Protein backbone atom coordinates (compact mmCIF):
# COMPACT_ATOMS: atom_id res chain seq x y z
CA UNK A 1 0.00 0.00 0.00
CA UNK A 2 1.14 3.54 -0.77
CA UNK A 3 2.80 5.56 -3.45
CA UNK A 4 5.38 8.29 -3.28
CA UNK A 5 3.40 10.97 -5.04
CA UNK A 6 5.75 13.94 -4.65
CA UNK A 7 8.90 15.01 -2.86
CA UNK A 8 11.36 17.80 -2.31
CA UNK A 9 14.84 18.09 -0.83
CA UNK A 10 17.66 20.41 0.23
CA UNK A 11 21.20 19.01 0.35
CA UNK A 12 24.76 20.19 0.00
CA UNK A 13 23.98 20.49 -3.73
CA UNK A 14 21.47 23.22 -2.92
CA UNK A 15 17.73 23.35 -3.00
CA UNK A 16 15.75 20.97 -5.17
CA UNK A 17 15.70 17.44 -6.49
CA UNK A 18 17.34 18.44 -9.79
CA UNK A 19 20.36 19.90 -7.99
CA UNK A 20 20.84 16.63 -6.10
CA UNK A 21 20.32 14.50 -9.18
CA UNK A 22 22.78 16.52 -11.24
CA UNK A 23 25.43 16.23 -8.53
CA UNK A 24 25.03 12.45 -8.39
CA UNK A 25 24.99 11.94 -12.13
CA UNK A 26 27.96 14.32 -12.66
CA UNK A 27 30.00 12.52 -10.00
CA UNK A 28 30.32 15.58 -7.75
CA UNK A 29 31.36 15.07 -4.15
CA UNK A 30 29.40 17.50 -1.96
CA UNK A 31 30.72 16.93 1.53
CA UNK A 32 34.34 15.71 1.48
CA UNK A 33 36.34 17.82 3.87
CA UNK A 34 33.28 19.06 5.73
CA UNK A 35 33.98 18.50 9.40
CA UNK A 36 30.72 19.79 10.85
CA UNK A 37 30.62 21.59 14.17
CA UNK A 38 29.83 25.27 14.31
CA UNK A 39 29.10 25.88 10.63
CA UNK A 40 26.26 24.19 8.79
CA UNK A 41 27.00 22.51 5.45
CA UNK A 42 23.86 23.94 3.89
CA UNK A 43 23.75 27.74 4.15
CA UNK A 44 20.84 29.10 6.16
CA UNK A 45 19.77 31.92 8.49
CA UNK A 46 22.74 33.40 10.38
CA UNK A 47 22.91 32.55 14.06
CA UNK A 48 20.06 30.08 13.79
CA UNK A 49 19.65 27.22 16.22
CA UNK A 50 19.70 23.75 14.70
CA UNK A 51 15.91 23.66 15.00
CA UNK A 52 15.53 26.94 13.12
CA UNK A 53 18.06 25.84 10.52
CA UNK A 54 16.36 22.53 9.80
CA UNK A 55 12.88 24.04 9.94
CA UNK A 56 13.86 26.53 7.24
CA UNK A 57 15.13 23.79 4.96
CA UNK A 58 12.23 21.42 5.67
CA UNK A 59 9.87 24.21 4.66
CA UNK A 60 11.78 24.58 1.41
CA UNK A 61 11.58 20.83 0.75
CA UNK A 62 7.87 20.87 1.61
CA UNK A 63 7.22 23.68 -0.84
CA UNK A 64 8.95 21.69 -3.59
CA UNK A 65 6.85 18.63 -2.77
CA UNK A 66 3.75 20.84 -2.83
CA UNK A 67 1.31 18.25 -1.51
CA UNK A 68 -2.42 18.67 -1.99
CA UNK A 69 -3.49 17.47 1.43
CA UNK A 70 -6.91 15.98 2.10
CA UNK A 71 -8.85 16.34 5.32
CA UNK A 72 -7.16 13.35 6.98
CA UNK A 73 -3.38 13.44 6.89
CA UNK A 74 -0.46 12.64 9.15
CA UNK A 75 3.08 13.96 9.52
CA UNK A 76 6.12 11.95 10.62
CA UNK A 77 9.51 13.52 11.32
CA UNK A 78 12.54 11.24 10.97
CA UNK A 79 15.82 12.37 12.51
CA UNK A 80 18.60 11.34 14.87
CA UNK A 81 21.12 13.51 16.68
CA UNK A 82 21.47 16.83 14.87
CA UNK A 83 18.99 18.53 17.18
CA UNK A 84 20.66 17.40 20.37
CA UNK A 85 23.02 20.37 20.24
CA UNK A 86 20.20 22.75 21.08
CA UNK A 87 19.40 20.74 24.18
CA UNK A 88 22.87 20.04 25.43
CA UNK A 89 24.46 23.42 24.84
CA UNK A 90 21.49 25.77 24.56
CA UNK A 91 19.75 25.00 27.85
CA UNK A 92 17.09 22.70 26.51
CA UNK A 93 14.69 20.87 28.81
CA UNK A 94 16.27 17.43 29.22
CA UNK A 95 12.90 15.89 30.08
CA UNK A 96 11.59 16.62 26.56
CA UNK A 97 12.80 14.96 23.38
CA UNK A 98 14.64 17.28 20.96
CA UNK A 99 12.79 16.24 17.77
CA UNK A 100 9.24 17.24 18.68
CA UNK A 101 10.00 21.01 18.88
CA UNK A 102 11.18 20.88 15.25
CA UNK A 103 7.99 19.13 14.18
CA UNK A 104 5.92 21.66 16.15
CA UNK A 105 7.77 24.57 14.54
CA UNK A 106 7.34 23.13 11.04
CA UNK A 107 3.61 22.54 11.54
CA UNK A 108 3.17 26.10 12.85
CA UNK A 109 5.13 27.56 9.93
CA UNK A 110 3.03 25.66 7.40
CA UNK A 111 -0.21 26.12 9.35
CA UNK A 112 -0.85 22.37 9.31
CA UNK A 113 -3.04 20.47 11.74
CA UNK A 114 -2.49 16.76 11.08
CA UNK A 115 -4.74 14.06 12.47
CA UNK A 116 -1.66 12.11 13.51
CA UNK A 117 1.90 13.29 14.12
CA UNK A 118 5.01 11.89 15.74
CA UNK A 119 8.79 11.64 15.44
CA UNK A 120 10.78 8.52 14.73
CA UNK A 121 14.43 8.01 15.60
CA UNK A 122 15.54 4.64 14.22
CA UNK A 123 19.17 5.66 13.66
CA UNK A 124 20.19 5.74 9.98
CA UNK A 125 17.11 3.76 8.93
CA UNK A 126 14.74 6.35 10.45
CA UNK A 127 13.18 7.41 7.14
CA UNK A 128 12.46 3.81 6.13
CA UNK A 129 10.85 3.33 9.54
CA UNK A 130 8.74 6.39 8.78
CA UNK A 131 7.79 4.90 5.42
CA UNK A 132 6.69 1.64 7.05
CA UNK A 133 4.61 3.56 9.58
CA UNK A 134 3.12 5.73 6.83
CA UNK A 135 1.79 2.61 5.13
CA UNK A 136 0.14 1.57 8.39
CA UNK A 137 -1.48 5.00 8.69
CA UNK A 138 -2.81 4.74 5.13
CA UNK A 139 -4.27 1.34 6.02
CA UNK A 140 -6.02 3.06 8.92
CA UNK A 141 -7.71 5.44 6.52
CA UNK A 142 -5.52 8.52 6.34
CA UNK A 143 -5.49 10.25 2.95
CA UNK A 144 -1.82 11.23 2.98
CA UNK A 145 1.24 10.98 5.16
CA UNK A 146 3.94 13.62 4.90
CA UNK A 147 7.37 12.26 5.82
CA UNK A 148 9.89 14.88 6.88
CA UNK A 149 13.51 13.81 7.33
CA UNK A 150 16.32 16.09 8.42
CA UNK A 151 19.64 16.02 10.21
CA UNK A 152 22.57 18.34 10.75
CA UNK A 153 26.26 17.84 11.51
CA UNK A 154 26.50 19.66 14.80
CA UNK A 155 29.39 19.66 17.27
CA UNK A 156 27.69 16.81 19.07
CA UNK A 157 27.43 14.66 15.94
CA UNK A 158 30.88 15.56 14.74
CA UNK A 159 32.50 14.67 18.08
CA UNK A 160 30.64 11.39 18.17
CA UNK A 161 31.63 10.17 14.76
CA UNK A 162 35.20 11.36 15.21
CA UNK A 163 35.34 9.27 18.37
CA UNK A 164 34.04 6.23 16.51
CA UNK A 165 36.76 6.70 13.87
CA UNK A 166 34.28 6.24 11.04
CA UNK A 167 35.22 9.43 9.17
CA UNK A 168 37.24 8.85 6.03
CA UNK A 169 40.81 10.11 5.94
CA UNK A 170 40.50 10.72 2.21
CA UNK A 171 37.48 10.28 -0.01
CA UNK A 172 34.65 7.87 0.77
CA UNK A 173 34.99 4.91 -1.59
CA UNK A 174 32.05 2.51 -1.13
CA UNK A 175 32.83 -1.17 -1.66
CA UNK A 176 36.42 -0.27 -2.59
CA UNK A 177 39.28 -2.39 -1.31
CA UNK A 178 40.75 0.79 0.24
CA UNK A 179 37.54 2.16 1.78
CA UNK A 180 37.93 3.77 5.18
CA UNK A 181 34.64 5.46 6.05
CA UNK A 182 32.44 8.40 5.10
CA UNK A 183 32.05 12.12 5.41
CA UNK A 184 29.00 13.50 7.14
CA UNK A 185 26.43 15.53 5.25
CA UNK A 186 23.21 17.42 5.82
CA UNK A 187 19.81 17.11 4.22
CA UNK A 188 16.21 18.11 4.73
CA UNK A 189 13.68 16.10 2.75
CA UNK A 190 9.94 15.76 2.35
CA UNK A 191 8.07 12.83 0.79
CA UNK A 192 4.32 12.59 0.36
CA UNK A 193 2.87 9.07 0.70
CA UNK A 194 -0.67 8.33 -0.42
CA UNK A 195 -2.67 5.94 -2.56
CA UNK A 196 -2.48 7.84 -5.81
CA UNK A 197 -0.24 8.21 -8.82
CA UNK A 198 3.51 8.05 -8.48
CA UNK A 199 6.08 5.47 -7.58
CA UNK A 200 4.53 2.50 -5.80
CA UNK A 201 5.98 1.39 -2.48
CA UNK A 202 5.92 -2.34 -3.21
CA UNK A 203 7.31 -3.26 0.19
CA UNK A 204 9.09 -2.01 3.30
CA UNK A 205 10.66 -4.39 5.79
CA UNK A 206 12.25 -3.50 9.11
CA UNK A 207 14.46 -5.97 10.91
CA UNK A 208 16.42 -5.82 14.14
CA UNK A 209 19.23 -7.67 15.75
CA UNK A 210 20.67 -7.50 19.22
CA UNK A 211 24.23 -7.45 17.99
CA UNK A 212 26.99 -5.04 18.96
CA UNK A 213 25.32 -1.63 18.85
CA UNK A 214 27.88 -0.01 16.55
CA UNK A 215 27.82 -2.54 13.76
CA UNK A 216 25.64 -5.18 12.17
CA UNK A 217 26.39 -8.84 12.79
CA UNK A 218 29.04 -9.95 10.35
CA UNK A 219 26.71 -12.73 9.20
CA UNK A 220 24.49 -10.06 7.56
CA UNK A 221 21.50 -12.19 8.54
CA UNK A 222 19.32 -9.29 9.66
CA UNK A 223 19.48 -7.30 6.41
CA UNK A 224 19.15 -10.52 4.41
CA UNK A 225 15.99 -11.34 6.34
CA UNK A 226 14.50 -7.96 5.44
CA UNK A 227 15.45 -8.36 1.77
CA UNK A 228 14.00 -11.85 1.55
CA UNK A 229 10.58 -10.61 2.74
CA UNK A 230 10.21 -8.06 -0.06
CA UNK A 231 7.64 -9.08 -2.66
CA UNK A 232 9.69 -8.52 -5.83
CA UNK A 233 13.31 -8.73 -6.92
CA UNK A 234 14.89 -5.37 -7.73
CA UNK A 235 16.23 -4.29 -11.11
CA UNK A 236 18.83 -2.16 -9.30
CA UNK A 237 19.99 -1.45 -5.76
CA UNK A 238 20.64 1.86 -4.00
CA UNK A 239 22.69 0.54 -1.11
CA UNK A 240 23.39 2.20 2.25
CA UNK A 241 27.03 2.14 1.09
CA UNK A 242 28.69 4.08 3.89
CA UNK A 243 32.15 2.95 2.78
CA UNK A 244 32.99 1.64 6.24
CA UNK A 245 34.59 -1.80 6.12
CA UNK A 246 31.80 -3.52 8.07
CA UNK A 247 28.78 -1.81 6.49
CA UNK A 248 29.83 -2.60 2.95
CA UNK A 249 30.83 -6.16 3.80
CA UNK A 250 27.41 -6.73 5.39
CA UNK A 251 25.59 -5.43 2.32
CA UNK A 252 27.74 -7.44 -0.08
CA UNK A 253 26.99 -10.62 1.90
CA UNK A 254 23.28 -9.87 2.23
CA UNK A 255 22.83 -9.08 -1.48
CA UNK A 256 24.72 -12.21 -2.44
CA UNK A 257 22.73 -14.34 -0.01
CA UNK A 258 19.38 -13.16 -1.36
CA UNK A 259 20.04 -12.38 -5.05
CA UNK A 260 22.96 -14.73 -5.76
CA UNK A 261 26.41 -13.86 -7.05
CA UNK A 262 24.97 -12.10 -10.10
CA UNK A 263 23.27 -9.24 -8.28
CA UNK A 264 21.38 -6.43 -9.92
CA UNK A 265 23.52 -3.31 -10.49
CA UNK A 266 24.39 -1.60 -7.20
CA UNK A 267 25.07 2.05 -6.49
CA UNK A 268 24.94 4.40 -3.51
CA UNK A 269 24.73 8.11 -2.72
CA UNK A 270 26.87 8.82 0.35
CA UNK A 271 30.08 9.30 -1.63
CA UNK A 272 28.24 12.32 -3.11
CA UNK A 273 25.86 13.70 -0.46
CA UNK A 274 27.72 12.56 2.64
CA UNK A 275 26.10 10.46 5.34
CA UNK A 276 23.03 12.45 6.33
CA UNK A 277 22.14 10.12 9.20
CA UNK A 278 18.42 10.33 10.01
CA UNK A 279 17.74 11.84 6.59
CA UNK A 280 19.90 9.42 4.63
CA UNK A 281 17.20 6.91 3.69
CA UNK A 282 14.94 9.78 2.58
CA UNK A 283 17.73 11.04 0.29
CA UNK A 284 17.96 7.54 -1.15
CA UNK A 285 14.19 7.14 -1.57
CA UNK A 286 14.10 10.37 -3.57
CA UNK A 287 17.09 9.36 -5.69
CA UNK A 288 15.50 5.94 -6.22
CA UNK A 289 12.34 7.60 -7.56
CA UNK A 290 14.48 9.68 -9.92
CA UNK A 291 16.42 6.62 -11.16
CA UNK A 292 13.12 4.89 -11.95
CA UNK A 293 11.66 7.94 -13.70
CA UNK A 294 14.79 8.88 -15.64
CA UNK A 295 16.03 5.36 -16.46
CA UNK A 296 19.60 6.15 -15.44
CA UNK A 297 21.63 4.69 -12.58
CA UNK A 298 24.41 6.99 -11.34
CA UNK A 299 27.75 5.41 -10.51
CA UNK A 300 29.78 5.00 -7.35
CA UNK A 301 31.97 7.73 -8.76
CA UNK A 302 34.74 7.60 -6.17
CA UNK A 303 35.16 3.84 -6.08
CA UNK A 304 38.29 2.73 -7.92
CA UNK A 305 38.74 -0.98 -7.26
CA UNK A 306 36.06 -3.18 -5.78
CA UNK A 307 37.17 -5.14 -2.72
CA UNK A 308 38.60 -8.57 -3.39
CA UNK A 309 36.06 -11.36 -3.42
CA UNK A 310 33.03 -9.11 -3.81
CA UNK A 311 30.68 -10.43 -6.46
CA UNK A 312 28.06 -7.66 -6.51
CA UNK A 313 27.58 -5.75 -9.74
CA UNK A 314 28.92 -2.42 -8.46
CA UNK A 315 28.37 0.49 -10.84
CA UNK A 316 31.82 1.97 -11.29
CA UNK A 317 31.72 3.42 -14.75
CA UNK A 318 29.50 6.12 -16.15
CA UNK A 319 25.81 6.20 -15.38
CA UNK A 320 24.00 3.13 -16.72
CA UNK A 321 20.87 3.60 -18.76
CA UNK A 322 18.20 0.95 -18.29
CA UNK A 323 14.50 0.31 -18.12
CA UNK A 324 14.51 -0.04 -14.35
CA UNK A 325 11.06 -1.00 -13.03
CA UNK A 326 11.92 -1.90 -9.45
CA UNK A 327 14.57 -0.43 -7.18
CA UNK A 328 15.74 -1.48 -3.74
CA UNK A 329 16.83 0.98 -1.02
CA UNK A 330 18.68 -0.62 1.89
CA UNK A 331 19.68 0.88 5.20
CA UNK A 332 21.72 -0.26 8.19
CA UNK A 333 21.41 1.48 11.54
CA UNK A 334 23.28 1.58 14.84
CA UNK A 335 21.60 -0.49 17.48
CA UNK A 336 20.86 -3.20 14.92
CA UNK A 337 17.98 -1.44 13.18
CA UNK A 338 18.06 -2.36 9.53
CA UNK A 339 15.51 -1.81 6.78
CA UNK A 340 14.84 -2.24 3.09
CA UNK A 341 12.25 -0.75 0.76
CA UNK A 342 11.30 -1.76 -2.73
CA UNK A 343 9.93 0.90 -5.09
CA UNK A 344 8.16 0.13 -8.35
CA UNK A 345 7.60 2.28 -11.41
CA UNK A 346 4.08 1.64 -12.57
CA UNK A 347 3.15 1.47 -16.23
Amino acid at each position, binding site marked *: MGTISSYGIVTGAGSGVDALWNAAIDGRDLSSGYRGGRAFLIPGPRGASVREHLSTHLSSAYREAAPELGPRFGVILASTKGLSNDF*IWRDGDLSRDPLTPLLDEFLRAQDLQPEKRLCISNACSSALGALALARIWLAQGLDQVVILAADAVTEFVSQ*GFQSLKLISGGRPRPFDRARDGFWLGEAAACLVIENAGGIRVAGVELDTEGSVVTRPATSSVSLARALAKLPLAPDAILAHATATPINDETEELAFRAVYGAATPPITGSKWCVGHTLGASAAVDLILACEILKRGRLFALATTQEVAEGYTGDYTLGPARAGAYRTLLVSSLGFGGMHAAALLELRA
Partner: protein
Amino acid sequence: MTEFRFEFSFPASGAPVWQDRVERWYSLDAPAYGLAELFWREQEHLTERPGTLFLASSGASNRTDASFARTRPPSPAKFVHTLPNTRAAALLRLMDWNGPTYCLQNDPATLETALSEGRSVVEITSLPVWVASVENIAADRYRARIFTLKPVAGKR
Protein backbone atom coordinates in the same frame (compact mmCIF):
# COMPACT_ATOMS: atom_id res chain seq x y z
CA MET B 1 -3.11 -4.68 27.98
CA THR B 2 -0.72 -5.92 30.64
CA GLU B 3 1.96 -3.74 32.19
CA PHE B 4 5.24 -4.93 33.65
CA ARG B 5 7.38 -2.44 35.51
CA PHE B 6 10.66 -2.16 37.36
CA GLU B 7 12.03 0.85 39.22
CA PHE B 8 15.75 1.08 39.67
CA SER B 9 18.73 3.27 40.49
CA PHE B 10 21.43 3.74 37.91
CA PRO B 11 24.33 3.07 37.80
CA ALA B 12 23.45 -0.35 39.14
CA SER B 13 25.37 -1.62 42.14
CA GLY B 14 26.62 -4.82 40.53
CA ALA B 15 26.81 -6.85 37.36
CA PRO B 16 23.50 -8.12 36.04
CA VAL B 17 22.66 -11.84 36.02
CA TRP B 18 22.54 -11.66 32.20
CA GLN B 19 26.03 -10.19 31.88
CA ASP B 20 27.31 -13.10 29.78
CA ARG B 21 24.58 -12.63 27.19
CA VAL B 22 25.15 -8.98 26.32
CA GLU B 23 28.47 -7.89 24.93
CA ARG B 24 29.84 -4.80 26.73
CA TRP B 25 26.92 -4.79 29.16
CA TYR B 26 28.90 -2.37 31.33
CA SER B 27 28.59 0.39 28.73
CA LEU B 28 24.77 0.31 28.63
CA ASP B 29 22.99 3.49 29.63
CA ALA B 30 20.10 3.55 32.11
CA PRO B 31 17.26 2.90 29.61
CA ALA B 32 19.10 0.01 27.96
CA TYR B 33 19.97 -1.54 31.32
CA GLY B 34 16.46 -1.05 32.66
CA LEU B 35 14.67 -2.68 29.73
CA ALA B 36 17.04 -5.65 29.74
CA GLU B 37 16.69 -6.12 33.51
CA LEU B 38 12.90 -5.79 33.40
CA PHE B 39 12.65 -8.41 30.68
CA TRP B 40 14.97 -10.73 32.56
CA ARG B 41 12.93 -10.43 35.75
CA GLU B 42 9.60 -10.95 33.97
CA GLN B 43 10.62 -13.38 31.25
CA GLU B 44 8.38 -16.16 32.47
CA HIS B 45 5.40 -13.81 31.90
CA LEU B 46 6.74 -12.49 28.60
CA THR B 47 6.96 -15.71 26.67
CA GLU B 48 4.74 -14.66 23.76
CA ARG B 49 6.93 -12.54 21.51
CA PRO B 50 5.46 -9.48 19.74
CA GLY B 51 4.92 -8.94 16.04
CA THR B 52 6.09 -5.33 16.47
CA LEU B 53 8.00 -3.48 19.17
CA PHE B 54 7.51 0.21 19.92
CA LEU B 55 10.07 2.09 22.00
CA ALA B 56 8.47 5.08 23.69
CA SER B 57 11.48 7.34 24.14
CA SER B 58 10.27 10.14 26.40
CA GLY B 59 13.11 12.60 26.89
CA ALA B 60 14.88 10.76 24.08
CA SER B 61 18.46 10.06 25.19
CA ASN B 62 19.04 13.57 26.56
CA ARG B 63 20.66 12.45 29.80
CA THR B 64 22.99 10.09 27.96
CA ASP B 65 23.71 12.89 25.49
CA ALA B 66 24.68 15.23 28.31
CA SER B 67 26.92 12.57 29.78
CA PHE B 68 28.64 12.06 26.43
CA ALA B 69 29.09 15.81 25.96
CA ARG B 70 30.89 16.07 29.33
CA THR B 71 33.34 13.27 28.53
CA ARG B 72 36.84 14.21 27.42
CA PRO B 73 38.08 12.74 25.22
CA PRO B 74 34.69 11.85 23.69
CA SER B 75 33.82 8.25 24.49
CA PRO B 76 32.65 6.13 21.55
CA ALA B 77 30.95 3.74 23.97
CA LYS B 78 28.86 6.61 25.34
CA PHE B 79 28.16 8.08 21.89
CA VAL B 80 26.47 4.96 20.54
CA HIS B 81 23.92 5.13 23.35
CA THR B 82 23.01 8.68 22.40
CA LEU B 83 20.87 7.11 19.69
CA PRO B 84 17.69 6.39 21.64
CA ASN B 85 16.90 3.28 19.62
CA THR B 86 20.04 1.56 20.94
CA ARG B 87 18.26 1.09 24.27
CA ALA B 88 16.57 -1.88 22.60
CA ALA B 89 19.75 -3.70 21.60
CA ALA B 90 20.31 -5.54 24.89
CA LEU B 91 16.59 -6.25 25.23
CA LEU B 92 16.51 -7.76 21.73
CA ARG B 93 19.49 -9.90 22.62
CA LEU B 94 17.80 -11.30 25.70
CA MET B 95 14.47 -11.74 23.89
CA ASP B 96 16.25 -13.51 21.05
CA TRP B 97 13.79 -11.73 18.79
CA ASN B 98 13.91 -9.75 15.56
CA GLY B 99 11.24 -7.79 13.80
CA PRO B 100 9.88 -4.34 13.10
CA THR B 101 10.85 -1.86 15.81
CA TYR B 102 9.94 1.82 15.98
CA CYS B 103 11.60 4.29 18.32
CA LEU B 104 9.00 7.04 18.81
CA GLN B 105 9.10 10.52 20.32
CA ASN B 106 6.22 12.91 20.79
CA ASP B 107 6.80 14.60 24.14
CA PRO B 108 4.97 15.24 26.34
CA ALA B 109 2.71 12.51 24.92
CA THR B 110 5.33 9.98 23.81
CA LEU B 111 4.04 7.01 25.80
CA GLU B 112 0.41 7.70 24.93
CA THR B 113 1.36 7.99 21.25
CA ALA B 114 3.29 4.71 21.32
CA LEU B 115 0.41 2.90 23.02
CA SER B 116 -2.03 4.31 20.50
CA GLU B 117 0.19 3.22 17.60
CA GLY B 118 0.55 -0.17 19.26
CA ARG B 119 -3.21 -0.63 19.45
CA SER B 120 -3.55 0.29 15.78
CA VAL B 121 -0.92 -2.23 14.73
CA VAL B 122 -2.56 -4.97 16.81
CA GLU B 123 -5.81 -4.22 15.04
CA ILE B 124 -4.25 -4.30 11.57
CA THR B 125 -1.94 -7.28 12.03
CA SER B 126 -3.80 -9.32 14.68
CA LEU B 127 -0.41 -9.90 16.26
CA PRO B 128 0.70 -8.87 19.75
CA VAL B 129 2.65 -5.64 20.18
CA TRP B 130 4.99 -4.61 22.95
CA VAL B 131 5.52 -1.01 23.98
CA ALA B 132 8.68 -0.44 26.02
CA SER B 133 9.48 2.73 27.89
CA VAL B 134 11.96 4.04 30.45
CA GLU B 135 11.35 7.28 32.34
CA ASN B 136 13.64 9.21 34.61
CA ILE B 137 11.60 9.70 37.81
CA ALA B 138 14.19 11.28 40.12
CA ALA B 139 17.87 12.23 40.01
CA ASP B 140 19.21 8.71 39.51
CA ARG B 141 15.94 6.79 39.63
CA TYR B 142 14.22 5.30 36.59
CA ARG B 143 11.07 3.35 35.79
CA ALA B 144 11.18 0.76 33.02
CA ARG B 145 7.89 -0.53 31.66
CA ILE B 146 6.84 -3.07 29.07
CA PHE B 147 3.20 -3.08 27.97
CA THR B 148 1.93 -6.11 26.10
CA LEU B 149 -1.02 -5.52 23.80
CA LYS B 150 -2.84 -8.52 22.37
CA PRO B 151 -5.55 -8.95 19.77
CA VAL B 152 -9.03 -9.43 21.08
CA ALA B 153 -10.03 -13.08 20.60
CA GLY B 154 -12.25 -13.59 17.57
CA LYS B 155 -11.69 -10.11 16.23
CA ARG B 156 -9.89 -9.66 12.94
